[in-house]
Each structure stands twice: as C-alpha cells, then as structure tokens.
C-alpha cells in the first residue's frame, strides 16, 4: 500500500532536484543558511563541572563521521570537495587526550588494562576496576555501563574513576564496595592518584565464588519449586475442569431432552421427594422429617434422662 501510492512523489523528489540539492544543500524554499534564534540554554554556562564527553570536532556531521572511520562500509561517499576543505582532520595526528581510552600507556606506572585483565581471572567479566588505575581487580561486569567509558573519565579527573567500586560479580549478586569502601569511589575526589583499591585476597574471592554457587543453587531450587507448584495447580485445574464439564454436560443433556419432550422421570423422581415434603410442610400437614417423631414409646427424646425428656415431649 505504502510503496505504490508513494512512488510518484518519491520520483519527483529524488529525480533531478536531488542532484541540485546535493551540490547545494541550501537549495530549499526557505532562505538559505538561516539559523534559528539562539537557544535559551546557549547563553547559560553548563553548571556541573567536567563532563565525560569528548569535545566536538569541527566540520559537518557527514565529514566528522566519515573521518572518524565509523561510517558504514560501502556507504562512504567520496566527496572530494568536502574532505579537501578539511584536510587537517585527516592528516594531523591528534595528541593523546587524557580522556582517551589508552590512558594505561600514557600513565606508565599503572600498567595497561588488558594485561591485567587477562592475568586476573577471566571468570569475572570485563574490567571496571582496572579502569581506576590498573591495580584493582577486574570484578565489575559489563552489566552496568561500559567500562571503557568510565575508565576514560576516571583518567580525566580521578574522582569518578572508582565508580566501579561497587562491582557486580560474575554471578550476578551485587557485592558491596571494597577497597575504597563505598559506591562513590575515592575518599578524596580531587586526588587523581589516590590509593587504588587493592586486589581482593584469596578468601574474599573464594567466598565470592561460594556465594555465587549458593546463589545458583538457590535459584535452581526455587525454579524447581515453582515448576512443581505450577504443575500441581495445572493438574488440579484440569481435573476440576473435567469434573465441571461433566456436570455441565449432564445439565445440558437434561435440558435438551426436556426441550425435545422426553421426560427423564427417573432423575426427577430422585429429586422430587424433598420438594414434596417441603410443600406439604407449608400446608401444615404432618411432616415427619421436620417435626420429628411424636409417637410415644422409646424415642430419642428420652435419651438424656427420665425427667426432662417427657416434659419436653408433652
């Protein structure tokens, strides 16, 4: 539906006019190159200090993306005019920024992230501790955020590097912060070379493994328990359903038979006596069931003793 009715319009727009537009993107009906009024926030300064973002690259978006090498392969349009206009972006080697991800090599003493990771245990996920300076064990999992991102930021101002202090173990349990004691990292946020957290000892890691194992079996047992319960409920419900559907069938069958004029006397006979007795009781007739036996002689009334029973009976 969409493609059929849309075709003529697309042809009209993607035909000849597009070529013109590609040469000069300002060719539209509006006045070329007009900018909107300044945004209200552009006058105000940003209020929260250092930011984790890299400074923006000058140039148009398409050039920036294509020079960053992240454009889609096969869709890199060779626009010689625009790249020639910005040769500096390609040729000039950028100095390594402190927020770049390879801080390990620029701060030589801390060792590189990668080697530490491989040395310390692959079972614990990717580095989050390593980012805070290289000495910390890599116990953060990739679950919460990109470790490289944090690492880069930690390298910049130091204060945020140890957000990984509250790490997730590979088994999923949230472990409290250790080393610097607390989810918010360094006690002194202004000291970028503060004491990096020491790697956890054998017992800590052993207990963490045990915790993971216990957690695992706890979950498995819970699952089994829930499955059993669910199966039980299912079976109960199924049996009840059969029971009820049988009764429903019976009722329906009786109804249909009655509609067809076939009397199912036997069933009615079984049910009627009770009704008859009630009606007769309403009419005030003798009702043995409701009034009880009034006949003289040995009866249940005299069970409880010789004095009370005759009084009540009389």
């Amino acid at each position, binding site marked *: 539906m969409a493609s059929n009715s*849309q075709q003529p319009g697309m042809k009209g727009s993607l035909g000849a006019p597009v070529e013109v537009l*590609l040469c000069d993107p300002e060719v539209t009906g*509006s006045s070329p190159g007009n900018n909107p009024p300044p*945004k209200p926030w552009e006058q105000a300064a940003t209020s929260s200090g250092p930011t984790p*973002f890299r400074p923006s*690259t000058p140039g148009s978006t*398409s050039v920036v993306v294509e020079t960053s090498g992240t*454009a889609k392969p096969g869709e890199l349009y060779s626009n010689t005019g625009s790249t020639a206009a910005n040769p500096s972006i390609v040729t000039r080697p950028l100095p390594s920024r402190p927020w770049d991800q390879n801080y390990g090599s620029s701060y030589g003493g801390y060792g590189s992230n990668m080697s530490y990771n491989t040395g310390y245990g692959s079972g614990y996920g990717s580095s989050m501790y390593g980012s805070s300076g290289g000495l910390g064990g890599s116990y953060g999992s990739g679950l919460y955020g990109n470790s490289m991102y944090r690492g880069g930021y930690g390298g910049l101002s130091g204060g945020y590097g140890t957000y990984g202090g509250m790490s997730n173990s590979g088994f999923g349990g949230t472990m409290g912060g250790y080393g610097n004691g607390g989810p918010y990292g360094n006690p002194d946020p202004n000291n970028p070379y503060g004491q990096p957290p020491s790697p956890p000892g054998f017992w800590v890691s052993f207990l963490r493994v045990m915790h993971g194992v216990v957690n695992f079996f706890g979950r498995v047992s819970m699952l089994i328990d829930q499955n059993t319960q669910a199966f039980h409920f299912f079976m109960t419900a199924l049996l009840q359903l059969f029971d009820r559907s049988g009764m429903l069938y019976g009722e329906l069958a009786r109804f249909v038979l009655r509609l067809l004029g076939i009397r199912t006397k036997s069933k009615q006979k079984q049910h009627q006596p009770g009704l008859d007795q009630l009606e007769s009781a309403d009419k005030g007739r003798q009702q043995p069931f409701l009034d009880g036996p009034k006949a003289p002689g040995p009866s249940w009334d005299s069970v409880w003793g010789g004095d009370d029973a005759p009084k009540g009976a009389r």
Partner: protein
Amino acid sequence: MPVFKTPFNGYAVRFSPFYENRLLVATAQNFGILGNGRLHIIDLNPAGGISELCSFDTADGIYDCAWSESHDSVAVAAVADGSLKLWDAALPPSSNPIRSFHEHAREVHAVDWNPVRRDSFLSASWDDSLKLWTLDRPASIRTFREHSYCVYSAAWSPRHADVFASASGDCTARVWDVRDPGSSLVIPAHDHEILSCDWNKYDDCFLATASVDKTVRVWDVRASRAPVATLAGHGYAVRRIRFSPHRESLLLSCSYDMTVCVWDYRTEDALLARYDHHTEFAVGVDMSVLVEGLLASTGWDELVYVWQHGTDPRAIS
C-alpha cells in the same frame, strides 16, 4: 487556550525553533495501527485560535516529527513504513517531499534534529537500530546497531554536536558519540521498556528516561549506577519526556494515563502540575523554546492543545 482538531490520532507535536507561533503535528489514522498519516504545520493566531498552514499526507502513519534546525520551513517525519520524509513548506506540493529515505526495515518511531550542528538528524526504529542522516548524502551515513529490541527514542545532546542518547525496549538507555564505533555508556535504566529520553538543556550530564514502569528517572551520565531522581505519579506508561529549554530542573511528560505532568526533579514534591485535558492517551508533548512556559500536547483524542503553563488547557480565552 487554542485547540486544533486533527483528522487522525495525534502522535507528536513540536514547536518550531524559528517561529514562536508555529507547530508541527504528526498524526496517524486508526491509532497508528493501520492507515494513512498526515503531518500538519499549524500556526497560533494572535487572535487566539489555531489555523493550519499546510499539511502533508503519507501512505502510512507518522509516529514522530522534527523541525529542521537549519531551514525554517523544513520538517522531517518518521513514517510507519520505515521511511523518513522531509517536506519543505515553502515549496509547492509538486516538489514535496524533498527527500524520502527508506532504509529502516520496520517502523521508524522517533526522529530528532541535531540542534548544535544543525545539519543532521537521527532516526530510531523498531528494527533495533538508529541511523544518522544528513541532507548532503543520499543515504544514511551511520547505523547504530547495539540495542536488542525496538529503539523508541533518540535525543541529541543540546550542548555536544556529536553526542546523543537513545532509549530502547531492551530496558536500556545508551549514550553514543557519532565518532565512536559503539555506544559510550549503557544505562540499564528501568525494569521495563523505556519509551523516551531527553537531555537536560543546562546540565549536559543529566539525562531523563521515561518508561513503561510508570516512572521518569533522571540520570547523571558520570554516575549512572543509580538515578538522580525517580519521578512517580503517572498511572500508566510514560510516553514522552522533555526537559524545559528555560528552566534547568523542569520536566514535561505525557502518559498513557491521559495526563500531561510537569515535574521539578530537584524538589521534594516533584510533581508541579497535572493536566488531564486529554480524553485519550496523551502521546505527544513539547515545550516552546522561544516562549517560556508555553506547552503543547496531542493525543489519540485527535486534539492538539497549546497552553501556557499554569492555565487550563481547555479554557477558551
């Protein structure tokens, strides 16, 4: 305050960054499930009414729209057939749409124009990807494919030309840099699908997410382990969230509980105002960049309301 009746169910509304009285409204027929779409450009009259400047039809519903930041008459729409269409209101109907990009495999759910560099826009689609487009390229220049479920929203940072955030149905919000191959931050922000996200206009590290779990959360991208604030008060999923362009801590949200809420996430009693003028799901909401406190909302009741914060949207002035 003025009300505009659209023929279809409203999906998004945007104030023009150029004219304080101009708005863009995206609508879709039959609640966006099936049918046509229409993009309206409407003007607020000084007398106090709304008149339609022009409208553009599509063969499928329009889920989102955005004004161009570089041309005052150009608008882009996210269409349910997976295409992005650009219209120029100053051109005759025969030459519109001026662009139609069709690369997404499924519905495009959100579109956002870069407010800093002004030459590019982003689209977020149900095919789990985001795409970056510029007008001087015939196709998308980048595809961001990391989300594992529908991407519901994308928002450019108002201060960084290369940074944007995305919100997805895989319960994560991601922060991206167009120069990096992957996302630079993943925030597992909610336990349910995240429908919308937006940046704080004054503090460039703060990000708000709105989710199916009925809450709005504000995040600091430097410390994304815990939210800065959790705003609860909506009765159903929160559909769209916007930070105020004028006040640092002011938020505007709309929800499937048919209300539009104004929040101040820094105060103890965060809910400042609740507008229940819509009689169906409130889906689109926006705050004017040029006039402080001017709000607009649209919803499935096919009405577009424009009102000043603090007044009753339904009051006829």
